[in-house]
C-alpha cells in the first residue's frame, strides 16, 4: 500500500516537473506534429472505413489545418486558419464507433512517430473535449 502511494506521489511530482513545458513542446514542436499527421494520413489511406470519409478531400489542406489544430490545442500558440470542428464535420454524421476508430488510428500514428505512451495520453486529453462537436452531426 505504502509503496503504491509513494509511487503515485512520485509520478505526480514528476508530472509537475514537466508542467512548465506545453504538450506541444514535450512532443518536440512542429516537426514531430507534422510527422504524426503524416502517419495519420497514411493510416487513413490504408483504412477502408476512414478513407471513405476522405475520398473527396483535399489532403494537402487537411494536413496543413490538422497540424495547426494540434499545435493550438497542445499549447503551441499557432493560429488556426481552418474551419471550426463543428463546421467541418457537420453533414458527415460520424458515428461514435468511427470516432473511436479514428482515435485508434491516431494512436497508431503516434506509435509510429515514437511518441511515448504518457505523452500520447496528454495529446488525447487535449482532443477529447471536441468529440461532441464532431459526432452525429
Amino acid at each position, binding site marked *: 500500500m505504502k509503496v503504491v502511494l509513494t509511487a503515485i506521489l512520485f509520478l505526480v511530482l514528476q508530472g509537475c516537473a514537466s508542467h512548465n513545458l506545453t504538450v506541444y513542446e514535450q512532443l518536440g514542436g512542429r516537426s514531430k506534429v507534422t510527422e504524426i499527421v503524416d502517419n495519420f494520413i497514411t493510416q487513413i489511406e490504408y483504412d477502408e472505413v476512414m478513407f471513405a470519409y476522405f475520398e473527396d478531400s483535399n489532403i494537402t489542406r487537411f494536413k496543413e489545418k490538422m497540424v495547426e489544430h494540434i499545435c493550438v490545442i497542445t499549447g503551441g500558440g499557432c493560429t488556426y486558419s481552418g474551419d471550426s470542428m463543428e463546421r467541418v464535420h457537420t453533414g458527415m454524421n460520424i458515428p*461514435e*464507433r468511427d470516432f473511436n476508430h479514428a482515435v485508434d488510428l491516431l494512436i497508431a500514428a503516434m506509435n509510429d512517430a515514437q511518441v511515448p505512451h504518457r505523452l500520447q*495520453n496528454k495529446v488525447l486529453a487535449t482532443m477529447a473535449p471536441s468529440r461532441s462537436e464532431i459526432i452525429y452531426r
Partner: protein
Amino acid sequence: MKIKDLRLLLWGVAMTLGVSPAVDAADGKLIATAGLIQVEGSGGGGIVPWATLAGYDTQEQTSASAGVTQVNLRDYRLTTYAAAVSFYDRIEVGVAQQRFDLKSLGGEIKQDIFSAKYRVYGDVIYTSLPQISVGVQHKRLKDEAIANLLGASDTTGTDFFVAATKVHLGAIAGYNAIWNVTARATKANEMGLLGFGGADNDDYELMLEASVGMLLSRNIAVGMEYRTKPDNLGLGESHWRDYFISYIPTKQFNVTLAWADLGKIAGAPEQRGLYVSLSGQLW
C-alpha cells in the same frame, strides 16, 4: 495446480481464443475501456460492477462476451461462469452461475444470477461527468441447505445498484487513471451464496463499493477494489478488497490476476487467495 483447475483454465482459453475473432466484432470503444466481467456476471471490475458495459459495442453495435473467474481461498473456491450481451452501449443483460466449493467442509453451493444494466448517462472517457449506469442482479440459490442452516430468511434476492465510472486521460503523470464508485442496495449474505437477510437484519442496506486503477500501457491496468458488505447473519461478514493486474492484449480477450482478501466467510477467517479471470468477446 489441480486437474480441475487446469481443465477450467483450458476451457476458458479455448472458449475465448477458439471463437474466431469475427470480422464484424464490436470494436467501437477504446481498448481497455470495456471487456471485463465481474464475479457476479456484470460488466466490471472484478468484485465490483462498474458503469461500463461488458462489451466494446458503441451506439450502433451489439456484443456478446463470456468469461470465467476463479477465486481460490483457504477454505473455499469460488468459480463463476458468465455470459453477457450488450446492446448499443446502452443495455447489458447477463447470466452467471457461481459454484462455491466448500473445500474444507465438503460440498458445493450453486447460485444462478440474472443481471441487467442500463447506461443512464455519459461516456467513461469523453463526458466531463462520469458515465452512470443503474443495474439489478437477481440471484437464485440452487443449494439452499447451508443458507437455511445459518438462518438466512430467503434463498432468492435482488440487488439494485448505481455505478459511476470515469477515465481521466493522462491524469497521473501521463498515465490514464480510472475510478468507479458503486452504491448497492442488498440483502445478500456473501453475495447470496449464504442466502438473503437473517436474524440480525432483514432489510435492504446500502453498501458502497469502489475501484481505482491506472493504465500502465494500452494493454495493462493495475488497481484495487473495495466492497463493503452487510452482516445479516451475525457471522462477522467482512468487507472485501482486491489488488489486480489486467492484461488486455486485444478487444477480444483479457486476463486478470488479483490478490483477493475476502476476510471471514461463514465464520472461517483469513480467506485470501488468488483471483484469476479470463474473458473474451464473441462478437
